[in-house]
Each structure stands twice: as structure tokens, then as C-alpha cells.
């Protein structure tokens, strides 16, 4: 009952005219960003974040969450109409969405995607509401040792479950953590890693600079290269009969959808997994459970619905550890976390005690965002079809200009703008060489917390390293981290007996 009263209070915040307007604005922007090939939720949040100073911090977070939500819906639009995933999270939607569009059922596919996203969003938001407060209560017992172990666990999920090259993943984690130490030493206050004696480095490297560089400039460079020829847009018309038929069809799929939502939610919580693998897994499972698996890939409605539910559920799932534990479940939530810290709303269990209005306002705004997204999505389909015809160079030039100005605005230093271009170009090259970007961004955001909790623990325990395994919770986290870390090693040994140079200890 306490939960319901909290939620009711939250709705009082999120249904205020300003916040309601912000949610609608956010999901609309998110839908457009998600629909643009190449740009996804993480790019949208990185580019828009500097512009959110215009509203109060709590509304800014609601806006960014709404963009996140909208982008998850929007990804399906270009998957279906162009056959190119609007964001990596919508890759699985192309498998059956594109064939449906080619059979002239683009409108139906878009409706099914939107309704399935809505189902996934709703189930996961309910799960989120149920889990948030208990998880935050558990997290209240965390000391620095547990915090360190939890961050370590977040990083080792990338090594064990990330699916990228293990060595390159470890390099990116270490690079991000090393970059996070630039500036002043947390404990002694001495300057460290002041490259070329540039005064700009004294204040450290902001997560926003790295994010705008990689997800703004780097992404545009990457897209310039990959989108040589303009894709053809499939026309889509929506009629009320289609809408009714689509809803009825989705209704029949309740088993797939509830399963996809549950799985998406829990997979989304893992930092290394997130919406893309969740959608692919959901697609695979629904094909496995289907009575006609041979129709998948040829325009099966279920093949559009199941990945779309899962990726929306995963985006909500990734918000849960971010808000309750302060550990982001995806690169986008890492940016949200960085933004919240910047505004003085430090995520974690204390937020639930100190700022209940904000927390429950945000949770309830997820309900309104979900409603707004499905309505805006269905209403604006003709507009999206038109927007997808927009020449890519127009979008690129606007995004690049926003990256430059948005990079300058928060700190008002040209130093940061130069860093953004540097990160953008280097990030683009490294991405081409298969270096994963998500661990880098997560490491830069979590680096200060990791170092602080590690050193705090050791100082309070007079340098006793065993402190980390003497506490039951932190010992558990460290044990799971060790398993994740050894997982690829075991695979290696199994696969071949060749000696490989893998460091014996995880990043500390």
C-alpha cells in the first residue's frame, strides 16, 4: 500500500503541466532520433544533454528518460521502412519487419511494433515499480567495500558476457578508468595526469565530453562511411482497420510478449547485455517456441513483436540498477547517471530517502512516457515516413554543430571542444577496429566511484586487502566477478591449448 501512495505522489509530479509537456516533447524527439538510421538512444541523450539545462534538474532527467523511451520505439520505424536498424537495439526487428514492409504490410508492422513496445514497456515499468524500493533497501546496507565489488562486477560482465574481444574489452575498461583519474587525486588533492600541462585537465575529463565525442562526432563519421547510398523508403499507410487488426494480432501473442518482457527486463539490468542482445534472444526464443518456425524471417508478425517488447523492457530494466544502486545497466543510463550526478541528484539508495518526490516522479513518468510514446508513434507515422526521406547530410551537419556547441556549453571551455573532436576521431577509428565503446563510457562514469570506494575501504581497514572478502555481500559480488572474468579464459583453454597472454587479475 505504501508503494501505491508513493506512486500516487509521483503521478502528482509527473502529471504537472510542465512535466507532461516534457514527456511528450521527449518521446517525440526520441522517436525521431530513434528512427534516424545510425542514431539511437545513446546518441540522442549525449547530444541533447547539454541542452537540458533549460529546465529544472528533475524535469531534465524526465526529459532524457522520455528520449530514451521514445528512441526504443523509434528504432523499429527505420528497421521496417528502410530495412536498416534505426539503432542497434532494433536489429532483430529488421528480420521480419523488412519482409512485412516488402509485402506491402509496412503499416501493420509499424502498428505491431508500437503495440508490442507498449506491452513490453508497461510490463517492465510495473516490474520496475515493484523492485525499485526493495532493491534500494538492500543497497542501503552497502558500504564502500560492497560498492567497489559491485562496480567490479559491472565491469566483469563485459568480459564474461559482452561477446566482444576480451583483450579489447579489458583495454577499453582500463582506458576509461585511467581517463577518469585525470585531474586531482581524490584523497590527497594533488594534480595527476595533467597532459601537456594544459590547465583544462585540472577539472578532469567530463563523461559528457567523451560521450559527445564518441556518440556524436564518432557516430556521424561512422555513418558517413556506412551510408554511401541512400536507402529507399517503403511507403506506409495506416488505417483504423489496420490498427484494430494489429491490436487483435498482438493480443494473440500474449505468451511471447510477456515472456519477452520478463526476459528483456532482466537481461537489460546487466551492464554488458542490454537491449540489443535482449531483443535478439527474444526473437530466437519466440522462433524456437513457435509452431511455424519456418515463417520467421519471411514476415511473421511475431518476429516483429517479440524483439520490440524485449528491447523496450530492457531499457526500463537498465534504469533499475542505475537508480537504485548507482550502477548503470547500459551506456545510455551511464549518461543519465553522469547527468544526475552533475545536477546533484546522486543515484543510489539514499536518493529514495532524500528525494522521494523526484524518484517517484521519475518512475511514474515512465508510465506516462510509455503511453505518450505509443500514441505519438501511431499518430505521427506519416511524419516519420517523410522525415526518413530527409537527406543524410542535413542531419549530419546539424548534429555536428550541436556537438560543438553542446560540448562548449557545460564548461564553457574550448579545451573540451577540442577533446570532443579528438575522442570522436579516435573513437571512430577504434570502433572500426572492433574496440567496444560501451565499457569505455561506463568506466569513465564509474571510475571515480570505484577508486573512491576502493581507497576508502582500505583506509578504514588500515590497509587490510582481505576486507573485500570478509564482508559477505562484497565477497559474493567478487566471487561472481571472478566467475565472469574466468569465463572467457575457460572458453579459450577449451577451444585450443595455445598459450595466450591474458593478465591474471581483473582491473582494480
Amino acid at each position, binding site marked *: 500500500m505504501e508503494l501505491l501512495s508513493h506512486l500516487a505522489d509521483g503521478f502528482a509530479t509527473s502529471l504537472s503541466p510542465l512535466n507532461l509537456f516534457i514527456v511528450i516533447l521527449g518521446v517525440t524527439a526520441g522517436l525521431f532520433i530513434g528512427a534516424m538510421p545510425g542514431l539511437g538512444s545513446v546518441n540522442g541523450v549525449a547530444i541533447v544533454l547539454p541542452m537540458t539545462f533549460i529546465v529544472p534538474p528533475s524535469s531534465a532527467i524526465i526529459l532524457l528518460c522520455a528520449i530514451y523511451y521514445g528512441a526504443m520505439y523509434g528504432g523499429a520505424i527505420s528497421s521496417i521502412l528502410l530495412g536498416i536498424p534505426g539503432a542497434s537495439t532494433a536489429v532483430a526487428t529488421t528480420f521480419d519487419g523488412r519482409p512485412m514492409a516488402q509485402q506491402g504490410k509496412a503499416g501493420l508492422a509499424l502498428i505491431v511494433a508500437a503495440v508490442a513496445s507498449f506491452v513490453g514497456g508497461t510490463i517492465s515499468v510495473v516490474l520496475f515499480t515493484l523492485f525499485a524500493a526493495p532493491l534500494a533497501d538492500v543497497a542501503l546496507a552497502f558500504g564502500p567495500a560492497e560498492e567497489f565489488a559491485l562496480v567490479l562486477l559491472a565491469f566483469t560482465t563485459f568480459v564474461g558476457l559482452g561477446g566482444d574481444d576480451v583483450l*579489447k574489452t579489458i583495454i577499453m575498461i*582500463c582506458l576509461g578508468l*585511467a581517463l577518469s583519474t585525470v585531474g586531482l587525486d581524490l584523497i590527497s588533492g594533488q594534480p*595527476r595526469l595533467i597532459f601537456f600541462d594544459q590547465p583544462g585537465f585540472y577539472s578532469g575529463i567530463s563523461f559528457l565530453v567523451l560521450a559527445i565525442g564518441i556518440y556524436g562526432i564518432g557516430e556521424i563519421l561512422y555513418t558517413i562511411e556506412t551510408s554511401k547510398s541512400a536507402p529507399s523508403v517503403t511507403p506506409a499507410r495506416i488505417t483504423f482497420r489496420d490498427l484494430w487488426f494489429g491490436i487483435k494480432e498482438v493480443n494473440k501473442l500474449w505468451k511471447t510478449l510477456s515472456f519477452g518482457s520478463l526476459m528483456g527486463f532482466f537481461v537489460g539490468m546487466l551492464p554488458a547485455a542490454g537491449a540489443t542482445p535482449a531483443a535478439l534472444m527474444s526473437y530466437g526464443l519466440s522462433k524456437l517456441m513457435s509452431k511455424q518456425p519456418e515463417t520467421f524471417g519471411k514476415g511473421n508478425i511475431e518476429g516483429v513483436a517479440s524483439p520490440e517488447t524485449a528491447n523496450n523492457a530492457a531499457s526500463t530494466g537498465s534504469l533499475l540498477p542505475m537508480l537504485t544502486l548507482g550502477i548503470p545497466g547500459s551506456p545510455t543510463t551511464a549518461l543519465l547517471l553522469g547527468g544526475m550526478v552533475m545536477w546533484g541528484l546522486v543515484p543510489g539508495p539514499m536518493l529514495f530517502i532524500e528525494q522521494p518526490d523526484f524518484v517517484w516522479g521519475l518512475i511514474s513518468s515512465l508510465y506516462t512516457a510509455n503511453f505518450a510514446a505509443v500514441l505519438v508513434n501511431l499518430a505521427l507515422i506519416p511524419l516519420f515516413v517523410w522525415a526518413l526521406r530527409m537527406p543524410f547530410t542535413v542531419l549530419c551537419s546539424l548534429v555536428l554543430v550541436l556537438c*560543438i*556547441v553542446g560540448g562548449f556549453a557545460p564548461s*564553457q571551455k574550448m579545451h573540451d571542444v577540442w577533446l570532443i*573532436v579528438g575522442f570522436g576521431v579516435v573513437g571512430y577509428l577504434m570502433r572500426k577496429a572492433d574496440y567496444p565503446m560501451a565499457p569505455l563510457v561506463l568506466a569513465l562514469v564509474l571510475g571515480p566511484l570505484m577508486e573512491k570506494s576502493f581507497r576508502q575501504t582500505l583506509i578504514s581497514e588500515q*590497509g587490510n586487502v582481505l576486507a573485500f572478502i570478509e564482508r559477505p555481500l562484497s565477497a559474493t559480488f567478487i566471487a561472481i566477478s571472478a566467475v565472469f572474468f574466468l569465463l572467457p579464459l575457460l572458453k579459450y583453454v577449451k577451444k585450443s591449448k595455445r598459450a595466450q597472454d591474458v593478465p591474471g587479475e581483473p582491473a582494480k
Partner: protein
Amino acid sequence: MLMADRMIAAFLMALSLYFMWHAIALPIGWNGMTGGPGGGAFPFWLSAIMFVCAAGVLVRSLRGKSNYSGNFFDPETLSWIVSVTIALVLTIGAMPWVGTYIALPLFMFWYLKIFGKHGWVLTGSLCLCTPVFLFFFFEVTLKILLPKGLTEPFFIPLYARFF
């Protein structure tokens, strides 16, 4: 592709050595007085792990165990990437000098008209509307002053009007 993989790994090794060299300015070992590592330990040892892993990538590539083939760059698109990067660098270099409101429209003009080969109407309207939007959004609403350089005197009447 193989060559690029090696070069990036070598670059990362050099970068981690550079980080380590910076980190040793602070104690990197155990600090007996307070308990726990010194201020340079975190960056130093993380860079050391990075060095070892990058060396691993390089060795793996040299032993021919990586499965890369083909060109790292597509010759056709490489010139696009290079020209966009140069344009960005020139624009940012010019910003403190000639001001945001000259540098950014010039960049957009280059991108839309010359690089994108769009018509005059589209190019002109975007080059005019974007700076106006930026001025009202960042300067008037958010009170964030963008660099003006030489053009500063022209903005004084506008400041007087809007602030």
C-alpha cells in the same frame, strides 16, 4: 585491416606508457601511513594492464592469429571522413577567432553546399536559422555566452536588448 589493428595496438601501448609516466609523479605503491594505495597507483596499474592487453593484441596479430582481412578504409569514403574531420578542426580553430556565429555558418555552408551538394534555398535557410536558434537558446535563455572573437562588438547592442 591487419596493419590498422597492429597500429592501433601499438598506439595504445604507447598511450599507456605515457599515462604511466605521468602517474609516477605521485606515489604508485602502498602508502603505509594511511593504508591503501597512493594517488598514482590507480592510473599507473590500470595503464599497466592496458599495456599488457594491447601487447597481447599486437602479438596475436603478428602471429597471424587474428581473422582480419581487407582494407581498413574504403578508399572512396576515406576522403569524405578526412575532409569532414579537417573541416571540423578548422571550424573549432576559427571559433575563438572569428566567433561562433561566423565559424559555424561557414561550416554548415561547406557541409551542405559543397560536401552535400544541396540547393541554395536549403543551404541558405539552414545557415541563417541555426545561428539564430543557437543565439536564442544558449545566450538568451541559458545565459551561456558562446565565443565571439572579432565579432564581439556587433553583439553589444544585442546584449543590451536581451539581457
